[in-house]
């Protein structure tokens, strides 16, 4: 190998090293934002009360009002809670997801899952925490991901990861038949969940035209097409009607 060759090789090695040593990419590779609200129209359905008498420890955590089923949560301002909003398609083929930061935590507290609807990146750790200290089993029932069914008889945390994008992976506890959560597994970080004011925000999008989907466990999915450029913010509102 000539001198030039050695220099070139060293250069390549250094470049690789530099790339390797560079801190993980920030979550965003662009500066655009899509945000909006998820409205709800029609009569607010009455959700059944959950009888937790079998689990006094959990029951005791609801002093104000008895817990109710979380399938439909309509907010005070007439918006819909727990809607998973995400970029379904439109990212450039060259797009590379950033290495996921720390784990996403799912807490079992008061015999309910917190959060009830949430998202995670492929390969990112899901930390499943039992704050109740009573037996829960956590079953993931994905079809694109292999399932799992673990048991946690005490306060403890278990970690799992998902290998394939899937919207949504149902999570459930069979000891407490009312416990359900929904997990969106995506190859990118462009997702959000509507909160207690019905709003969502997806940040850091590269410029482009996207299909954005809003998914609700009872009312199904809706899509919208949104084009963003630079660091602008575009609004996309969704509206679900009572069935």
């Amino acid at each position, binding site marked *: 190998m000539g001198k030039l060759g050695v220099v070139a090789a060293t250069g390549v090695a250094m470049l690789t090293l530099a790339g390797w040593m560079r801190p993980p990419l920030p979550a965003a590779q662009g500066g655009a934002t899509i945000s909006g609200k998820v409205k709800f129209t029609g009569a607010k359905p009455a959700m059944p009360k959950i009888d937790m008498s079998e689990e006094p420890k959990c029951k005791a955590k609801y002093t104000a009002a008895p817990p109710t089923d979380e399938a439909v949560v309509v907010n005070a301002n007439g918006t819909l809670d727990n809607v998973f909003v995400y970029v379904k398609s439109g990212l450039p083929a060259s797009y590379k997801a950033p290495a996921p930061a720390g784990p996403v935590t799912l807490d079992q507290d008061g015999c309910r899952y917190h959060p009830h609807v949430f998202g995670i990146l492929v390969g990112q750790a899901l930390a499943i925490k039992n704050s109740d200290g009573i037996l829960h089993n956590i079953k993931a029932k994905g079809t694109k991901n*292999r399932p799992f069914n*673990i048991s946690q008889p005490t306060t403890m945390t278990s970690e799992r990861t998902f290998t394939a994008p899937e919207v949504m992976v149902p999570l459930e506890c069979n000891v407490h038949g009312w416990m359900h959560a929904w997990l969106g597994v995506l190859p990118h970080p462009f997702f959000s969940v509507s909160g207690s004011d019905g709003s969502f925000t997806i940040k850091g999008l590269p410029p482009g035209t996207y299909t954005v989907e809003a998914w609700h466990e009872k009312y199904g999915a809706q899509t919208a097409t949104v084009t963003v450029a630079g660091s602008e913010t575009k609004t996309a509102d969704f509206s679900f009607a009572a069935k």
Partner: protein
Amino acid sequence: MIGALLGLGIVLRFPLPPSLFPMQDTTRGKTVYVKWCAGCHGDGGAGDGPAAAHMLPRPRNFTGALYKIRTTASGQLPTDADLMRAIDEGLPGTAMPAWKGRLSDGERRDVVAYIKTFSSFFADTSQHVAALKFSSEPGGATGAAALDTGRQFYDSIGCRKCHGDQGRGDGPSAPTLKDDAGFPIFAADLHQSWRFRGGGSAADIYHRLRTGLDGTPMPWFSDLIDQKFLTDEQLWRLAQYVRSLSPPEAPEVRDVIHAPQITRTVPASPDDSVWGRVSRYWFPLVGQVVRKARWFAPAVTGVWVQAVHDGHTLALRVSWDDRTQSPDSAWLGFEQRVLETVAGDDSAPPKAEPWPDQLAVQFPRHIPDGMERPYFLMGSETDPVYQWRWTSRPRKSVAGLARGIERFDTLSGAPAGQASFDHGEWRLVFTRALATPDTANEVQLEAGRAIPVAFFGWDGSSGEHGSRMAVSTWYFLALDRPTPPGVFISPVLAMLVTLGLGLVVVRRARRRGTAGAGRRR
């Protein structure tokens, strides 16, 4: 054309390594599958063959690649050896038969390769498939300390939530359980290890606890070892405790119930101590599928029967596992799901109702001289049978003549019936005089004769009533004669015999006592 055939001939003449011929097994496997498996598992492997609609549990849907009996971690694919084992041994307690001996080794290997083609997971090389490392069983399995440790973890993990305090599948969460396809699923009755899907030995149980049963609510517990909640040995103790709940051997079906004669009056209570000293006989029951409406998912899987007499009265004790003391409103939703899952052949849409539990004991009206007996399925119009029938609500027993499934005419002389329900087990004692005035209709129970007897069971909370029941075939009841008075036994010999017997009884009782201590808490 000829060239192509010749070419093929050459290729076939020089066999290539099997990996280059992956289609070879699967094509042969398909032939086996279509012939032997598709009727239940469906042409496309979706578990929806023509016979599937009558089954609970349903045949496996191979497209999801979820398998119960594995040596791999929760959620991992099974190894080929796991699939082979399930096919060889079948899944006890379900419609899945054992195929070893019915299909050749090659055929079974090929069909394994074929069922894997129904799911793309098997072709996905990123799937991690590795058998877990299992330790071997520590000794001392039946010692009281071992069983105590096992019981302690049964409680601290919370197995009772699904399996119930005594393990009969009657835990508070049991009525809500569904499998991943949404079908109702029973938490296993841990007193019937011979019906466990993956085998009934302590090692089999330990393996299932390590791996869980994918596609069902039953989780794996290997994580708990990693997290130091319990040690591997303690998990073995738990498996051994679970094993101790069932008889040491799968019950053998014997044809004749021997009713010894006792010197005190017969016990009318199901919880009398006499029953602890009398042999029990196991009789399996099966779904009634002869007459409409047929029933394919019988909940009462069998009955344990004991009998004694005192020369005047017979006491017959029948005990059976039943998760519910029906009617039980907590199980109505489960009952509805069972009725919707198991296609019946009556036209009315299935509707759960609060049926009681029931049990019937059947005899011919007269002890036959030869082998002639009335039709086992509740006799016929012209040749009725004499039956004792018990219901849980109202709690009562009646006697009558059955003339086929549809017709039952009550007689005035009812047997006394006393029942108790304890943690998923019914214990019922019928008592009746050996001789009765109505000799035309009521069987006269003569000592020393073979009296035909059959059993029927209904679990109200599974929607069972009328023809939807579990049935047995005819067996025999024999009332033992007292030792004939003419037989001379030397006093010394008699003393030795009684002494020896006494020792045996005491030792038995002690052994039961210790086993029982671990068992009942």
